[in-house]
């Protein structure tokens, strides 16, 4: 079981490494979207500090959705997905592995870039720490929930836009708790409550999302 999970993750990571160009595109998308905001609202430091956490978080959602469209699509097109679904192991394990791989490939780089972008927005050091922490708890949720959307829209026309439509509303709690944690750290009201709620949501997603993704995969491949 565990070996299967590791194989799924290792395979996706290896494929991402072999296709570095695609992977870099998603990371640069994140950096660029965040950098557009100061140009749009003006360079006022106090204003930037207020919108900073929200901007970074919204951009993280978008960057995540951008790469989610391809989570199952490539494997679906070349037939590997069918082979994986026929494996003797539960399909929810496959969905979990896929989400985990997506987080390693796209989520972890986000964590590393975010503090740099936070500095651009003049966030204090403590807030930067909370920003990374909230992203560390929050981005796996994005990958897990997004996996459901990716499975549902598999092979559909305009799947990329559709997945945004389906999944973005489900991301609302992550955005609120995530950005709220950073704001709480900055305003001194504390961020523990936000982070623990985010953690609870992560646990719930871990329990439910792989299972629903596997059902969705079955429906879509049939």
């Amino acid at each position, binding site marked *: 079981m565990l070996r299967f999970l590791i194989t799924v993750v290792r395979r996706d990571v290896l494929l991402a490494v072999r296709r570095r160009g695609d992977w870099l595109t998603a990371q640069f998308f994140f950096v660029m979207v965040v950098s557009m905001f100061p140009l749009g609202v003006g360079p006022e430091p106090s204003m930037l500090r207020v919108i900073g956490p929200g901007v970074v978080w919204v951009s993280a959602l978008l960057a995540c959705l951008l790469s989610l469209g391809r989570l199952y699509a490539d494997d679906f097109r070349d037939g590997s997905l069918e082979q994986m679904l026929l494996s003797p192991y539960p399909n929810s394990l496959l969905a979990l592995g896929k989400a985990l791989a997506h987080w390693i490939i796209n989520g972890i780089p986000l964590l590393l870039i975010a503090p740099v972008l936070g500095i651009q927005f003049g966030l204090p050091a403590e807030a930067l720490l909370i920003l990374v922490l909230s992203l560390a708890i929050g981005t796996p949720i994005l990958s897990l*929930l997004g996996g*459901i959307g990716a499975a*549902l*829209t598999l092979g*559909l*026309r*305009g*799947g990329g836009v*559709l997945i945004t*439509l*389906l999944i*973005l*509303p*489900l991301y*609302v*709690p992550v955005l*609120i*708790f995530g950005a*709220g944690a950073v704001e709480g750290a900055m305003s001194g*009201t504390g961020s523990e409550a936000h982070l623990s*709620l985010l953690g609870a*949501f992560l646990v719930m997603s871990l329990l*439910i999302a792989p299972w*629903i993704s596997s*059902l*969705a995969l079955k*429906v*879509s491949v*049939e």
Partner: protein
Amino acid sequence: MNLYYYASPATFYPLAGKLIPWFAGLAVVLGAIGLYISFFIAPTDFQQGEGYRIIFIHVPAAWMSMFIYLVMAFWSAIGLAFNTRLSFLIARALAPTGAMFTFIALWTGAFWGKPMWGTWWVWDARLTSELILLFLYVGYMALQAAIDAPRRADRAGALLNLVGVINIPIIYFSVKWWNTLHQGSSVSLTGAPSMAMIMLWGMLVMALAAWMYTIAVSLARSRILILERERQTEWARAQLEGQA
């Protein structure tokens, strides 16, 4: 005669046809009573003047928008569990009406907010949740529209519906939490200072009217969907010829 008898499209189709006028009639009668209560019986509110009469639509529409999503999720779950095609169709037929009530709730919320708060849109917890609910409805309908294979459309929609319904309480809670942190407006639509008994009655009657309306409209819509799906079968052919 059992449950499966009514679950068969061939029996459901004529049955629905017979029921629609009754529900439509009830909707009209209840709607008329509700309007009478909201304009002629309910007294003027001493704080909000006549403007508060908007709640006689806003609150029932908001109730219905959430209720319909729950009912859809119920039918989706039944469909997935027992593999009954009819339940998926009912869920699908309900969605546009649910989206319509969500839109009405948002619209009337805005029209109530303008005179009371001075702006058309306020990010208060109720309106924000309503907006996200509208997104959920739109996502559900967009997904079904994008899938051509009926079996896949049914099941994919049902799964999305269920994910949505699990998420709604979390979304609602998070929005409320967010709203209190950012000191949202303290005035709320339902928390009007003197919620008189008659106001509650007005809202209840209007909600019932909306409910009957929803049943009538969704039955009519599911009839169309059934006919489209079953056009190859004997009874559907006979039906089409009979009405020609």
